[in-house]
């Protein structure tokens, strides 16, 4: 099976987020006083082949731990769905 994967890399709670703070500080000047809690992370998308979803999640978790995040300051939220891409489904 082929899965579409979205990994959102986020700063862990308590880690300073200068880009998020800078964006938030600029918002009142644009008339968005009601916005709070801005944080900036990364979105990484890819496809992954695996026999089943459990295996796919385990592989993505390992990839996040070893490479896509730095556990000292980041964690990841993983969204994983069977790929809708017909070609990928055939070849996968």
């Amino acid at each position, binding site marked *: 099976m082929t899965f579409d994967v979205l990994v959102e890399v986020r700063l862990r709670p308590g*880690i*300073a987020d*200068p*880009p998020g703070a*800078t964006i938030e500080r600029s918002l009142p000047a644009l008339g968005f006083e009601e916005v709070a809690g801005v944080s900036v992370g*990364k979105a990484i998308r890819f496809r992954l082949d695996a026999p089943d979803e459990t295996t796919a999640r385990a592989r993505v978790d390992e990839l996040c731990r070893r*490479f*896509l995040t*730095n556990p*000292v*300051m980041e964690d990841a939220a993983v969204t994983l769905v069977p790929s809708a891409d017909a070609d990928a489904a055939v070849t996968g």
Partner: protein
Amino acid sequence: MTRVGVVVFPGTNCEHDVVEALGRVGADAELLWHTQPTLGDVDAVVVPGGFAHGDYLRPGAIARFSPVMAAVAEFARNGGPLLGICNGFQVLTEAGLLPGALQKNRDLRFICTTVAVRVESTRSALTAGTPEGTVLRLPINHFEGSYLCSRETLAELRSDDRIVLRYLENPNGSIDDIAGICSEGRNVVGLMPHPERASDVLLGSTDGLPLLRSLVGATVG
């Protein structure tokens, strides 16, 4: 003569400065391309500054998987002196050879200036020849230089006397004003300031020379 290997990744840009500065303290430095699986016959290794692999994903995140890094890690495990400068410091933290991580600067600015740092411990490969309390003027040049680590790691660094350099005036938000740390074995040192850029009076400071001398084990003179 002490032979020093200077690791070069695509995007590294301080390697020639480091080779030049090491020459001034009597070492024979050679460049080591990142695809090399071995280090050859070297007595010390420097991972210099720059933007290894474009700093994509995170500074050092991709560089740590370059073939040469396995050899660098083994060299460090065997007690070999290993220095990471700026981007090299980031690479060594990503590789797990030094604890913690380097985050974006507090004020979200790329900082290019000269700062004063104090030698906090002489018990490292980089600071063995510089008395504790010595204030050095060294250039910094980074966007992601704010050192951070867990509370436990910080406590460990403090109690083990592994914080080797502190900023007198914290330029980037680093926890506990940390500018440089060393490994448990004290042979691996990482710092954000550039000692190689303080290696000639024409550069405005020669304060980097005693540090590099210590690294190569040469006598002061």
